[in-house]
């Protein structure tokens, strides 16, 4: 609405200007260029930078991944998808992918559920809502490294007789059956690794859901209640279906963070196979083994994995914006 009135204002402004004596093609071009040229000039530095440093680098990375340059000094030649196939034949890569999948499922699922639950509680109205909101959002301000350092201590896997951290708490309250190996357990340890990530991001997800809950007009809820709907039914049938966009955004934000996870793992476990994920493996491959082609291959897989999350989201957003006539 406001944009239209601004447009109208601009039109009157041009009309008010005295007419030039020789209206011609040149002039029309100048007027037209006046509308798009400044904009283009304004964005061209970022187009250029993104072109070189994002897409250019993706291109370079891809060409490396398709080559056999396995040492920094040697020249590579094109070998097609060999690197992509060979990665699956070793034992470390599938294990790292498995770890990333477990981490992602637990992290995304956990943060969504907890965030949704917290949002629901706040939406129902409690005293001191603002204080709780701040409290739940606070972990967002902490870096993954700091979170990792603290949780590394909390999730100390020492057995009951030497327990520290959470295990010591369990022992204190006679809950010794809860004492466990946390992230050092082979196979499912990554589920424990997701706990700090859930702690850190569920507040953010709560804020997303809370905004979603608040965005549902009160009239709709009223109407449902008049029709004899229970309070749970209102949420189940009226509010929840309207939260699909919010949920989708949340899944994408969490999902792409989760696939790239690096700092949290390094802070808690360092470079150990038990907590290996693709990003850590890539770091080792590039900076320690110094194998550019293999490192680039892992990077490509990471890009593809993130793209699986992000591209549908972009398509969906663009479609939505179009259909809303923006």
């Amino acid at each position, binding site marked *: 609405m406001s944009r239209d009135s601004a447009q109208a204002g601009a039109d009157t402004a041009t009309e008010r200007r005295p007419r030039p004596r020789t209206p011609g093609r040149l002039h029309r071009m100048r007027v037209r260029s006046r509308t798009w040229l400044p904009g283009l000039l304004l964005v061209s530095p970022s187009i250029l930078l993104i072109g070189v440093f994002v897409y250019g680098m993706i291109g370079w990375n891809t060409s490396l991944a398709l080559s056999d340059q396995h*040492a*920094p*000094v040697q020249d590579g030649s094109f070998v097609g998808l060999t690197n992509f196939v060979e990665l699956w034949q070793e*034992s*470390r890569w599938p*294990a790292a992918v498995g770890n990333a999948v477990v981490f992602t499922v637990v992290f995304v699922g956990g943060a969504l559920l907890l965030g949704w639950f917290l949002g629901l509680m706040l939406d129902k109205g409690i005293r001191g809502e603002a204080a709780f909101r701040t409290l739940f959002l606070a972990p967002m301000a902490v870096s993954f490294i700091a979170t990792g350092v603290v949780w*590394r201590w909390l*999730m*100390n*896997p*020492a*057995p009951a*007789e*030497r327990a520290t951290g959470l295990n010591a708490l369990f022992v204190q309250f006679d809950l010794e059956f809860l004492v466990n*190996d*946390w992230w*050092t357990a*082979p*196979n499912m340890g990554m589920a424990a690794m997701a706990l700090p990530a859930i702690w850190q991001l569920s507040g953010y997800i709560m804020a997303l859901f809370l905004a979603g809950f608040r965005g549902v007009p009160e009239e709709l809820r009223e109407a449902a209640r008049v029709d004899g709907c229970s309070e749970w039914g209102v949420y189940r049938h009226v509010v929840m279906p309207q939260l699909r966009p919010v949920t989708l955004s949340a899944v994408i934000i969490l999902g792409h963070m989760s696939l790239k996870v690096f700092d949290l793992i390094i802070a808690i*476990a*360092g*470079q*150990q*196979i*038990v907590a*290996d994920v693709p990003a850590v493996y890539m770091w*080792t491959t590039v*900076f*320690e*083994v*110094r*194998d550019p082609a293999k490192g680039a291959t892992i990077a490509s897989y990471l890009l593809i994995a993130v793209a699986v999350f992000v591209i549908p989201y972009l398509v969906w957003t663009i479609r939505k914006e179009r259909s809303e006539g923006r």
Partner: protein
Amino acid sequence: MRARYTQVSAAVLAAALLASGCGGDGGGDGTEVEVFSWWTGGGEEAGLDALIERFEEDHPDVEFVNAAVAGGSGTNAQAVLEGRLQSQDPPDSFQGHAGAELQDYIEAGYLQPLDDFFDEQGLQEAMPDQLTEQITYEGSVYSVPVNVHRSNVLWSNPGVLEEAGIEESPETLDELIDALETVEQETDAIPMAVGAQWTVDHLLESVLLGSLGTDAYNELWEPGADWDTPEVTEALESFEQIMEYTQEESAAEDWQEASRRVSEGEAAFNVMGDWAAGYFDEVGATAGEDYDWAPSPGTDGTYMWLSDSFTLPEGAPNEDAARSWLELVSSAEGQDLFNPVKGSIPARDDTDPAAYEDSAYLSEALAEWQDEPELAGSFWHGVTVGNRWKNDVDTAVGLYLGDGDLGTLQESLHEAAQAE
């Protein structure tokens, strides 16, 4: 503590500033020398500071730039260094583990051979032949060793051993395994403390050396070596038995915590390099009372060594000043300034033993080093193998820690040797 952080961040900042500024001014006027290392804490930093002070006294016209990058065993530093070398912006000298770990740099043409320097300074005579031989690559040396550390040391807690009734330090792997069992039965202590994955690699090399003997161990690291032998199987079986006596939470601890467990009587044994002696001093433990040491079982008379060394990069902006630096770190005087503080022994065998008398461990280690022991190179600390092979072994050990499959471990180790 805060002062140290400030120093570290100042050093890192200085490195960053220099990295960004160096391309422009071209350098080369001999007024500064930039030395890159990962010595940013504890005895390492103190040792480096002692050297820097001496260097500035001897060369008042040269400004010393300490480009140290923090991070355990140099992982972060190596990533930063790799970037600088690739963009042809090398420091004047950088620290690296002597031996195969530098091979990648040599092959990439980043390093200048130092044969003339070795002749000039008489280093071939001053250092043990076996040492210079093991750091020679295709007939040339590329780095100047400043110290020697020992990797195969078995640390123990005398109190725990007494409680368990163990009188003599175990001399073979079988004796060690018996001792571990006794500790398990008789005391509440952890029989063998280990830390995160790399400390298990460290334990593995000592077990291999102890089981196979020095020559067979050294042969394992020749490209294409045969690891598929009954002898290796036997060594790995001992390794597996020892691992059964380690603590469950090891993955969440680094070497300091594992060593601390020994000096505080929470564990009976720990296999760690002799930098643990410096750490014990730091935490106030007393030699002979809180901790004791012996060569790891089966390795008496062999020094499994590793060494920090300095290099001269190709295209170093201030080559003359860098040579002065190398001169200092290779001299007997420089090594005696650095090593007692860092907690290591000098690479030269003509230095002054009196400088090491304050430390019970160092004086004994120095006597042993000068007594011409047999030498084996540490694989984990970059002496015998390059980064790729080392990483393959690390991965195999990590996977073994997860699945406990000894057969697969041996197979992967064999494959790693064939891949070179």
